[in-house]
């Protein structure tokens, strides 16, 4: 009887100790799967507070993985005329943000969509608009103007997050598209 009790106690103890380990391992794997899926389909999310503050005040903080390093270098070299706006930064901030952009640029990223952006651009080209890259154009060529420039809520094709509801997290897949006034978009 005592032996049975002891064995039961051992089983319970082992169970209580191992169960959480097994579960947490499962959680870990689940996170890894999610991370892998994101990596294998999209671009890295923006998680840099300085970049978000300095570059995300006037427009969406575009994920750096949408343009190659040479494009970011070109953009950062002309901030005093940034698409018609003055976006100058002090020297330290400029350096830190440049380093972040280059490190996470499309040609330095292993995220699938970043690689697609990177591959679509000729090696001697350095577009300064994401919307000028061949991959972007290919993905958006069947969207009528009335849904974008003619749409008061969207106004411009550069407002990614007007339709890509999860753009800030680097997700641009079709399921997350919601065009204001038109709804979901299916190819």
């Amino acid at each position, binding site marked *: 009887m005592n032996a049975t009790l002891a064995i039961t106690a051992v089983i319970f103890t082992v169970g209580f100790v191992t169960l959480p380990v097994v579960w947490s391992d499962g959680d870990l794997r689940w996170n890894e799967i999610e991370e892998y899926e994101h990596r294998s389909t999209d671009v890295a999310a923006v998680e840099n507070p300085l970049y978000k503050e300095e570059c995300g*005040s*006037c*427009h*969406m903080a575009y994920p750096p993985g949408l343009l190659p390093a040479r494009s970011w270098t070109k953009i950062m070299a002309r901030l005093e005329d940034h*698409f*018609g*706006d*003055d*976006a*100058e930064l*002090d020297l330290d901030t400029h350096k830190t943000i440049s380093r972040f952009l280059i490190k996470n640029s499309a040609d330095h990223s292993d995220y699938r969509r970043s690689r697609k952006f990177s591959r679509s651009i000729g090696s001697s080209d350095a577009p300064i608009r994401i919307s000028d890259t061949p991959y972007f154009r290919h993905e958006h060529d069947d969207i009528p103007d009335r849904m974008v420039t003619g749409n008061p*809520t*969207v*106004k*411009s094709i*550069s*407002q990614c997050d*007007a339709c890509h509801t999860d753009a800030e997290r680097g997700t641009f897949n079709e399921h997350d598209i919601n065009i204001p006034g038109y709804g979901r978009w299916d190819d």
Partner: protein
Amino acid sequence: MKNHILITALVISIPVGFTRAESAIVNKLLQDYAALGAATADAERGKRMWEETFSSDGEFPERSCSSCHTHDLTRTGKHVKTNKEIKPMTPSANPKRLTDGKKIEKWFKRNCKWTLRRECTAQEKADFLAYIDKPS
């Protein structure tokens, strides 16, 4: 009765304390502008300039502070080009405003250059600051 007075005093002193903390930065900047030759800040003059339209070229030939920030400093604005929301400018509607001197200078530089096509003078910045701090 004594307790009531104490509580009332506390309740009154809390907002006053906040106002003081905010104004410290505004006062410091106003002193800096005065050292650069600005006369006393005039919120009325700041308001007039805020609403003035300046001519430019390109995509936006007519530019004003209110193009993006609206005429009402307690309201949320919208970037005229990108459509991005801009939180209210005045501290009474957005307590984070006017709490960081470096940030204030950065935006004066950028936005004066876009709107007026030049940097603002110390006097203009003093007037804007007075207006943004307490719009009339």
